[in-house]
């Protein structure tokens, strides 16, 4: 027993060490990128090359933590991997723009990191804007930006992995009928059974089977995107489930399915609340409608806020190193120990949150489905 505990601790310690090392490396390059964008001649102090720089350069190195964090939380048109010295290593992503002239498709590298315009468009603070011949922004320009952004690309990768994994598991099942699952299949089956028996069955009731494929899909979609978001470098690092557009679409899916599967008693409770005097309907019906619309909005905001908050906290802890490092090299070193410890702790917490938020989204969706298909037997008593 004790020896196995020791082993686990050893593994944990190793994992933590590896995580922090990876975190350091990637964050260092993130920080370098933002710093070198504004001050290309200057490099920030980190543990690795603290001895290289003189005191003068430190005082110049102001770190705008807010801007840095927001840039990493927000979507982008290229996928930054690392910055070595002043050279950026990033994957250009396709830009797709629909305007009056039709579709325009080109790689984001044509913008040269926002320094140049291409086909009447330019990159300003990570956003595509229409520009005129003098590189001035045209306000209220009529175009739709359908680019494959960093979030879209990250989602594609996560979805591809998810489909590959699930199809493999499905193939395993059809090959090994009536046998005990093994390895990854066992893990997936545990999660599937958890969703079926602990989420769908108790909250939806006997009609749970109709909703099970959707519940499984959102659970695994959110879970895998949350996990990919925790990986600090390619192919992770994007903030997919912490983007409000993604959670908005997921919430709309849940809302549409709830509305379409709502039975007579579900709509009856909203537009003609039973057991309530008719004059009160004027008051109750708007409240019920707000309640109905409130549910998907809450779903959308909860997932977005939780995941974004996690990213912000981790980035914040790392920013502390550079803020203090900019003041004093040794202070930065001292703070880095604390920051790494806190970030390691937060990363473990985020692993839990990744599962928890996927679970909560699935559970609430199934509760809404349950309220939509529930038969109100107690109505006879009114």
């Amino acid at each position, binding site marked *: 027993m004790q020896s196995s505990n020791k082993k686990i601790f050893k593994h944990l310690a190793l994992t933590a060490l590896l995580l922090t090392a990876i975190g350091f490396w990637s964050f260092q390059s993130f920080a370098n990128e933002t710093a070198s964008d504004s001050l290309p001649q200057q490099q920030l102090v980190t543990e690795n090359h603290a001895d290289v720089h003189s005191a003068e350069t430190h005082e110049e190195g102001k770190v705008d933590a807010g801007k840095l964090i927001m840039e990493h939380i927000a979507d982008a048109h290229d996928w930054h991997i690392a910055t070595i010295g002043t050279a950026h290593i990033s994957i250009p992503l396709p830009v797709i723009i629909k305007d009056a002239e039709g579709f325009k498709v080109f790689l984001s590298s044509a913008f040269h990191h926002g320094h140049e315009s291409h086909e009447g468009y330019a990159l300003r603070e990570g956003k595509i804007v229409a520009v005129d011949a003098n590189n001035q922004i045209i306000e209220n320009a009529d175009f739709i930006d359908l680019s494959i*952004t960093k979030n879209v690309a990250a989602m594609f990768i996560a979805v591809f992995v998810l489909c590959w994994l699930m*199809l493999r598991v*499905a193939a395993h*099942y059809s090959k090994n009928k009536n046998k005990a699952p093994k390895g990854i299949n066992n893990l997936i089956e545990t999660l599937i059974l958890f969703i079926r028996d602990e989420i769908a069955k108790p909250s939806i009731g006997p009609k749970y089977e109709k909703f099970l494929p959707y519940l499984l899909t959102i659970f695994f979609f959110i879970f895998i995107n949350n996990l990919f978001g925790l990986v600090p470098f390619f192919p992770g690092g994007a903030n997919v489930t912490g983007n409000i557009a993604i959670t908005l679409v997921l919430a709309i899916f849940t809302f549409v399915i709830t509305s379409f599967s709502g039975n007579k008693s579900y709509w009856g409770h909203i537009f003609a609340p039973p057991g309530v005097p008719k004059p009160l309907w004027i008051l109750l019906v708007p409240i019920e409608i707000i309640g109905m619309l409130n549910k998907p909005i809450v779903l959308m905001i909860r997932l977005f806020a939780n995941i*974004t908050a996690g990213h912000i906290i981790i980035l914040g802890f790392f920013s502390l190193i550079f803020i203090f490092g900019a003041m004093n090299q040794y202070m930065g070193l001292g703070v880095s120990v604390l920051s790494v410890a806190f970030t390691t702790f937060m990363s473990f917490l985020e692993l839990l949150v990744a599962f928890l938020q996927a679970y909560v989204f699935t559970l609430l969706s199934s509760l809404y489905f349950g309220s939509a298909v529930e038969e109100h037997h107690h109505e006879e008593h009114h």
Partner: protein
Amino acid sequence: MELVKPGLGLIFWMTITFSLVLFILSKFAWKPILNSIREREDSINNALNAADEARKQMDALKSDNEKLLQQARIERDAMLKEAKEMKDEIIGQAKKSADDESRRILAAANESIESAKIKALNELKTQVAVLSVDLAEKVLAKKMEDRSAQEAFVNENLKSITLN
């Protein structure tokens, strides 16, 4: 506020991707996985039920066997008892018939001994009579040779008779 402004492009791609994922996973992953999980659960349930059933049958069989055994034991006891009775009866009968026979043989022997004895006695009597007559004849013949002796004898005998 850039953070809470949903991007149109992202919504567009997300809707397409998610619909596709939902369709692909529902059709090619969840359906076979859930089906085979259900099948396996059914087969496990069936196996458990079958085992239960088998155990019940086994119990029934066991109690049946016990009953049969009990019956056989009773039957055996009855047979043994019967056999013992029969044996006792046969032995008793044999004893009785042997007794009778021996008694009968003894009686017959006694009878024949008795008759042989009587016959022998009779024969002896006749023999004795013949012998005594013969002897008397011889004695008389001898005595009668002498006339005087005869007369003396007769006289003597006469004397004694008169005295009576």
